[in-house]
């Protein structure tokens, strides 16, 4: 499935990016652009909804780090609802240190600051 990322700013200043499809090296720049738009909005928190993400390669993992670096030290990056194989990959490659992993059940907790 083709990759898509959509940005939504909530009223309390949270930037929510919904990802879907396959995040390979060709698609990673679009994800990066979306993150940059969120940063321009001076979001207080970045929430990445990954329920619809089928696949993530190493280029996509790097955008997670880029997101943390771009949003700033005081802004947390949440990865919500990622499928088990993707969560596993994030942990095995060690990229989970830069983000907060939240499973689907607790998705609501990240919507309020």
């Amino acid at each position, binding site marked *: 499935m083709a990759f898509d990322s959509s940005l939504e700013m909530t009223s309390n200043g949270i930037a929510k990016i919904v990802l879907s499809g396959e995040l390979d*090296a*060709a698609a990673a720049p679009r994800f990066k652009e979306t993150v940059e738009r969120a940063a321009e909005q001076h979001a207080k928190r970045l929430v990445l909804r990954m329920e619809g993400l089928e696949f993530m390669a*190493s*280029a996509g993992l790097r955008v997670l780090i880029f997101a943390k670096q771009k949003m700033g030290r005081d802004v947390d990056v949440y990865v919500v609802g990622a499928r088990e194989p993707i969560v596993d*990959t994030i942990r*095995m*490659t*060690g990229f989970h240190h830069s983000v907060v992993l939240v499973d689907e059940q607790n998705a609501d907790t990240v919507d309020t600051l």
Partner: protein
Amino acid sequence: MQRIDVHPTHIYEGFKIRPGRPFPFGAHLVPGGINFSIFSRHANYCSLVLFEKGARQPFVEIPFRGAFQRVDNGEPAWGEFRIGNVFTMTVFGLDHENLEYGYRMDGPGQGAQHGRPAIHRFDRTKVVLDPYARAISGRDLWGQPPDWTEPFQHRGRIVHDDFDWEGDRPLEIPLEDLVIYEMHVRGFTRHPSSDSKHPGTFAAIRAKIPYLKELGINCVELMPIFEFDEFENSRQNCETGEMLLNYWGYSSVGFFAPKAGYASTGRLHDATMVADELKTTVRELHRNGIEVMLDVVFNHTAEGNEHGPCISYKGTDNATYYMLTPEGFYLNFSGTGNTLNCNNPIVRDLVLNSLRYWASEYHIDGFRFDLAAILGRDASGYPLANPPLLETLAYDPILGKCKLIAEAWDAGGLYQVGSFPAYGRWAEWNGRYRDTMRRFLKGDHEVTGAVASSVLASPDLYSSRGPTASINFITCHDGFTLADLVSYDWKHNEANGEHNNDGANDNNSWNCGVEGHSDDPAVNVLRRQQIKNAIAMLLVSQGVPMILMGDEIGRTQGGNNNTYCHDNELNWLDWNLLESNADLFRFTKNCIRFRHRHSVLRGREHLRGRDYIGSGYPDISWHGVWAWRADWSGNVLAFLLCDQQSPAGSTRDDFVYVAMNMHWESLPFELPGLPEGKHWHLFVNTSVPPPGDICEPGQEALLEGQRTFLVGGRSVAIIVGR
């Protein structure tokens, strides 16, 4: 600012290319494309062969010289994409995630004929691996049988080399403070008892960091992690039907790629994830105060001799990479078929670039060089007095703070323990320490002189280099485990399928009365004691101690002293032993803590046996059952350490007295007198069952009798004076 030299200049079969940049060698991502660069002194034809991941046939082969089309006006143009002996081009528009690459080369000579000697082994019909490939596919999943009909098995892949180290740097722990743990990556967590989510991988090591911290080691030495072929020489054991593999990995396919089969992410066929996984493990170990050293194999490659496979070096520049006879047979100082021509300037650069790559990109703290005597031989195999490679490594700026450790011998008879060209930097695996302490442990007479030298970290060998030149060990992957050293007189390697002909015969082991497993409690108590004796003596010796993975919990290989081919329980660390041998773990852990606590054990200068600060005591003195009088003919020895190296004004370390009674009967040892106000406190007494065998350092109990101490037969006592 946009560079003016990153646009395509030529087209070939629809692929846009331009002349590449020769440095660095290998394949690197550049704006818009991938830069490929490969050296060959003798090739007269070279083409870049590109595949989709896993595809049988390439999707394009681009020659480095030939007819192309110009990008700007479409006119035909002759292209020569080469500088000197380096073929280099940048190719645009490639999907690097989905790419595998190799080269096709041709050159002088009759062409490679399998089984026949030749100086050049160019073969136009074969695709070969880039010697500088930073990721290699083909064995992505450990133990998965390859497709043997595929002619191009080991293929280069492209890696993102960026990584967020989060401020990590090599730890630069002083060599004298290291306690090294020799670990096999797969063996460490593969056993089911390890309870690892991804057993046998780089990632799985992280979950065991608390264990390593508790044990107290501060350096892991990883057995070979360069990409190797576990199916090399694979065969079935005709008796058991079991598949024997190249498990240890002393056979490099590539010098720049971590073994994909050791990564939990290997199965995703994403080369960058393998690199990320290993880097994360290094970062986590560093965060917990543990250095990472690599056991590196530059003495030979996985290509064997004229009967072996052509993977990379044979097909790109055989005459440069290998030591050959004038007829083109392979010199074999490694015992494996070929020998890397290490002092050839090109190969020197290969070795140097590889080490620099690991040190800078993976933050590796040090390297142990397998069969390092080969690194000092010239192209014909003659030992060099001043080997350029070893000198280069010792002086290299990037490697400037790395530990450099040599296994200072090879399989060609060149034994250089004590004479390895050191340039003031290199340390050595002290094989003499190993042999001496094993003989002492089993009760040999007339060894005490050599034992004294070993305890001192062999000043007879290393006087100009100091004790840190001596890496002390009693066991390592070669040979018995410590538990087997005290349970077997003879090797039992039948499971290797070589009729027990392989493996060392000079083990200097003693089975404590029964060969192998025993139900006799007296035998088992003695074996336990002997293990503790070995550990205690190793950890109070001057020099740098190295412990074999699992010795701290009594790992056994059933008497097999050469388990190189076993991917099974023989090699996998059984974590259940942590419970059944908890006393051994506790003993080892406390000995390590003791070492960390007492700087007098970790001197940077050799002890001289003299009092040079006017303390009234020499820095080290030798004793026997009588204080101040050692008997150099027996099998009993004691020594007293008086700290003289702590700078004036700082607190001096305690007096440490070690009594080693390798005689079978208990003997009373007269304790040396201490200065006024100081008294003897007992730390270790291996003849007493746990918990009395050792205490926590700092909790040593005051000895009731301050004049003599009864040391049990075949036991070690460590007594602290404060």
